[in-house]
């Protein structure tokens, strides 16, 4: 066991360490090197929520009610997920309105109402007293456990309370603070959060792994013990689902509206962005500090401890196991949890009391000698008063209740503020009458259902006379109001308190009017209007402002504040303009708010400095005008929103319906929009492309291509053989980016190629028509002349022979019948010439035929008959004798064609097949109907066509035959004829296996 003096020494030493830490943080802040302004210290400072209730009470609660202790930490975890919306808004409003307490916050929302601030303060002081008492009770109990004696514990408690009060004064009221924030205090609280976490985890590890073999063993043993029900939740277990939900809700409200939580989360916040990390860091802290609660609670029970003594298991277990140093460390951890709460809570409460109750009563005595010192001393007395109020509660009522019972009373009390604050932040019509009525209703329910029974239990009140009649009546039973039974204690107070609170708040707000000041403040809180929208002129000098400040915070401080303001803005006192006077006034109001509260600071400066009746009137009408403008603006905004939504939908419809791929890119070429057509073209879905670099999505679309396409359209052939035409247009707005339009021109390209081919044929047709005419005429003359020459030459030679030798008729006849060598030569030459001329004539005829492929008459014809005629023609070709013809002619309809042209096509097909099979082979000709088409194929077993040239065989003058054997026009003519009949001709061939030409003609022209 420990000596009492040793523990006192330990307590004082620990508090001195805290003070040293706070001092260091303050010095760093003044040097401009803050160690507090970061999200980690902010999150740790929020852990002031974990008091000796957490440290001792959670274990006690777990040992008696199982998992119900978790509700106190799950509520804040849930609430933390709303901090981005709720807490950030509260911080912003508090900073803009220089709010330093919860009562200021509520009072400010409802037209800077001092009455409402005072009401909030009274409820808070009364409601938080049990919570302060809880801390003092915990310290006294732990002190008694460590010293091993309860003798003189009241005196020790008194001493400890005094020490805590004095240290609270040292932390928060050693001078009249003009600052809203106290970095030293916040850093000390953050340090305490680490100490209590380390202490609790130490004892948790000791119990779990030192005395048992881990969590599993403890859980298994407790499950099979008499305490097995502690592991379950629900009806028939120590906690019902309804109570679970109520406690969770209460803790959600507590984390927002306990005065100390408001102080560290809102007033001491140095940067709203810290909230973003705190929303998960703070719940993580809560999770860590609770991990060992069940093992310690169940371990204590398994080791023989009783449920009634479970609050102190964290101390008694190490002590009984002879781990005195661990017990001392745990004591310091518990003390740390309690002191953090007491210091911050008493400071927050004292500031509320000063700003809302004391200053409104005394601020008019400002001209009294030493007025700032009076304020400071009153604040110190209030701090001591708050801590001793807790002490009184601890020794009078506290002994009848567990730590958790006492804490939950305070949670219920601060929940009374919830409707006024939450509705006040989001509902403009909520007014101070409603807020006051709601709070009073909630407070009455709290007093009647929680405090009065506690007073009865402690013996401070007796159930006699009227009291006895009332509390035992059916309607006014404090445990079952209006005869409604079935609630647990906490759900009962929460339900009736919140119900009446909300009804009164909403009802009074609807049926009573707001004044101008309330309207202004409602705009500020709900619509996030900022102060500069309500400009206040100042017609007073810097000296006068300095004098006013001096009356409340001391002359030296006032001089320093004005001097530092002028220095910070780089201006001279005598050259201040109207705007700078207004800024100085704002600075004075900020300083005064820190010292005496927002409401009083406003009153002081309004009375002393600024507003004439005319100016008040101006502000009033300005607010009315602004409210009306806001109403109209909202209507316009709603209309504009609807139009905007329609336009957005309309534009998206256009983009989505466009037959081209449309992609928008940001300045770093990431995809921001991807329409349906581009999905179809590329096969890449919008979700796959969104927010990725276009270069990664479409690798063939490089930065260089985009840059090039910015100047003129670019054409790209993709690896999938798609041809895209790409147009890139930069966005006009400064944020940059591009609109890229993709047009698939693959088909268009093919069409263009076909068009070119047709155009070539048409041109060539015209050309050959002319040429064949020009060549044909002289060729015909030459041919007839040669015929004539042949006959003339032979005749001349015969005549000359008759003239020189006229011997006898027999000789003459014999000689005439024997050709002369010259005549033979001439005859042979002329024959050769004639043969060549015939060949030229053939070419010319082919050319003429080629030229005549258009403009001929068509008639209904049987393709089978045309084929028969063609076969009859070819049959006389001697090469055809080696070819085995296999006709496969199906039942065919009459087709509207030009029979001569089609015959020419068939002829060309068959002659080509014969040429391809010089050694003979098979030619299969099939004709059949397929739907609306007649399909004809000419399949030979010849040499086939090489892959390299197969694409060119329909080109004019292209031939694979030896020189002189083909004109290269046959297939080209066929192509022209078939196209003219709206048909198609195609070829398939394999080297060495043969070639198949397929012709498709439509049945209906």
């Amino acid at each position, binding site marked *: 066991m420990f000596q009492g003096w040793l523990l006192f020494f330990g307590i004082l030493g620990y508090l001195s360490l805290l003070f040293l830490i706070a001092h260091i943080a303050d010095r760093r802040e003044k040097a401009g090197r803050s160690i507090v302004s970061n999200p980690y210290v902010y999150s740790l400072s929020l852990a002031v929520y974990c008091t000796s209730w957490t440290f001792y009470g959670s274990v006690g609660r777990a040992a008696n009610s199982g998992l119900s202790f978790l509700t106190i930490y799950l509520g804040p975890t849930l609430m933390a997920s*709303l901090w981005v919306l709720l807490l950030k808004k509260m911080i912003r409003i508090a900073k803009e309105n220089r709010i330093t307490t919860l009562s200021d916050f509520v009072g400010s929302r409802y037209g800077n109402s001092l009455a409402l601030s005072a009401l909030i303060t009274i409820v808070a002081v009364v409601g938080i007293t049990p919570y302060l008492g809880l801390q003092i009770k915990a310290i006294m109990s732990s002190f008694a456990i460590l010293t091993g004696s309860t003798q003189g514990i009241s005196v020790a408690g008194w001493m400890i309370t005094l020490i805590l009060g004095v240290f609270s004064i040292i932390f928060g009221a050693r001078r009249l603070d003009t600052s809203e924030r106290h970095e030293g205090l916040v850093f000390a609280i953050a340090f305490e959060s680490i100490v209590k976490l380390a202490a609790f985890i130490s004892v948790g590890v000791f119990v779990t792994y030192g005395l048992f073999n881990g969590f599993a063993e403890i859980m298994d043993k407790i499950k099979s013990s008499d305490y097995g029900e502690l592991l379950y939740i629900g009806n028939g277990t120590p906690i019902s689902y309804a109570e679970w939900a109520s406690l*969770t809700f209460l803790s959600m409200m507590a984390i927002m509206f306990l005065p100390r939580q408001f102080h560290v989360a809102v007033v001491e916040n140095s940067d709203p962005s810290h909230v973003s990390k705190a*929303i998960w860091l703070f719940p993580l802290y809560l999770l860590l500090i609770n991990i060992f609660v069940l093992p310690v609670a169940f371990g204590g029970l398994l080791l023989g401890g009783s449920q009634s003594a479970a609050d102190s298991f964290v101390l008694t277990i190490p002590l009984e196991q002879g781990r005195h140093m661990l017990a001392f460390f745990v004591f310091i951890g518990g003390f740390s949890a309690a002191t953090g709460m007491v210091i911050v809570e008493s400071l927050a409460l004292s500031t509320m009391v000063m700003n809302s109750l004391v200053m409104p009563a005394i601020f008019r005595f400002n001209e009294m000698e030493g007025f700032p010192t009076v304020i400071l001393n009153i604040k110190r007395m209030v701090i001591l008063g708050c801590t001793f109020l807790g002490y009184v509660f601890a020794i009078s009522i506290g002994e009848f209740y567990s730590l958790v019972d006492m804490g939950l009373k305070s949670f219920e009390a601060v929940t009374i503020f919830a409707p006024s604050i939450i509705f006040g932040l989001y509902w403009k019509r909520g007014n101070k009458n409603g807020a006051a009525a709601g709070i009073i209703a909630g407070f009455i329910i709290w007093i009647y259902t929680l405090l009065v029974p506690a007073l009865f239990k402690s013996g401070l009140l007796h159930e006699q006379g009227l009291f006895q009649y009332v509390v035992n009546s059916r309607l006014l039973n404090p445990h079952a109001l209006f005869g409604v039974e079935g609630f647990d204690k906490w759900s009962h107070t929460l339900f009736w308190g919140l119900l009446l609170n909300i009804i009164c708040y909403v009802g009074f707000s609807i049926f009573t009017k707001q004044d101008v000041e309330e309207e202004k403040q409602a705009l500020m809180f709900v619509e996030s209007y900022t102060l500069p929208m309500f400009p206040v002129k100042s017609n007073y000098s810097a000296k006068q402002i300095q004098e006013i400040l001096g009356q409340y915070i001391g002359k030296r401080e006032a001089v320093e504040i004005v001097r530092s303001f002028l220095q910070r803005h780089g201006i001279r006192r005598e050259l201040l303009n109207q705007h700078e006077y207004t800024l100085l006034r704002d600075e004075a109001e900020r300083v005064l708010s820190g010292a005496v509260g927002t409401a009083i600071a406003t009153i002081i400066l309004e009375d002393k400095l600024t507003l004439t009746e005319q100016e008040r009137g101006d502000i009033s009408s300005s607010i009315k005008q602004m409210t009306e403008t806001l109403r109209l603006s909202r209507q316009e905004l709603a209309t504009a929103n609807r139009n905007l939504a329609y336009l957005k939908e309309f534009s998206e419809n256009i983009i989505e319906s466009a037959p081209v791929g449309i992609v928008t890119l940001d300045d770093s070429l990431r995809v921001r929009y991807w329409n349906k057509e581009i999905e179809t073209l590329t096969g890449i879905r919008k979700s796959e492309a969104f927010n990725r670099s276009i270069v990664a999505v479409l690798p063939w679309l490089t930065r260089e291509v985009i840059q090039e396409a910015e100047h003129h359209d670019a054409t790209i052939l993709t690896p999938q053989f798609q041809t895209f035409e790409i147009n890139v247009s930069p966005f006009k707005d400064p944020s940059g980016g591009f609109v890229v339009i993709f047009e698939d021109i693959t088909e268009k390209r093919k069409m263009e190629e076909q068009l070119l081919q047709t155009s070539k044929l048409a041109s060539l047709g015209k050309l050959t028509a002319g040429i064949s005419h020009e060549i044909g005429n002289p060729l015909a003359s030459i041919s007839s002349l040669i015929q004539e020459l042949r006959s003339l030459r032979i005749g001349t030679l015969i005549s000359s022979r008759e003239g020189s030798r006229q011997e006898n008729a027999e000789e003459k006849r014999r000689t005439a019948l024997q050709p002369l060598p010259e005549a033979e030569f001439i005859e042979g030459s002329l024959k050769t010439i004639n043969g060549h001329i015939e060949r030229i004539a053939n070419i010319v005829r082919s050319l003429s035929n080629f030229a005549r492929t258009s403009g001929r008459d068509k008639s209904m014809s049987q393709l089978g008959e045309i084929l028969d005629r063609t076969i009859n023609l070819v049959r006389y070709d001697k090469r055809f004798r080696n070819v085995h013809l296999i006709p496969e002619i199906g039942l065919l309809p009459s087709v509207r064609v030009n029979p001569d042209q089609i015959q020419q096509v068939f002829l060309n097909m068959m002659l080509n097949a014969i040429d391809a099979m010089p050694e003979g082979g098979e030619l299969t000709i099939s004709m059949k109907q397929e739907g609306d088409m007649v399909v004809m194929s000419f399949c030979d077993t010849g040499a086939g066509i090489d892959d390299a040239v197969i694409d060119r065989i329909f080109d004019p003058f292209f031939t694979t035959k030896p020189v002189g054997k083909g004109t290269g026009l046959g297939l080209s003519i066929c192509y022209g004829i078939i196209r003219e009949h709206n048909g198609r001709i195609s070829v398939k061939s394999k080297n060495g296996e043969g070639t198949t030409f397929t012709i498709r003609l439509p049945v209906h022209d």
Partner: protein
Amino acid sequence: MNNREIWLFVFLSGVLLFNWPFLEIFSQSACYYLFGIWGLYILAIKLFMAAMQRRGE
């Protein structure tokens, strides 16, 4: 979903997960369920926050 809707969704999901009927569904292992979901919920908040910060909200 905008910022406000996401946080309201996270909050309401949490309210549901930490209350009836889920508590009844997992009543036989309520202790492990509560601590497990608590940890996952904190992780979810952190991830949502990180995602929003990446989106610049």
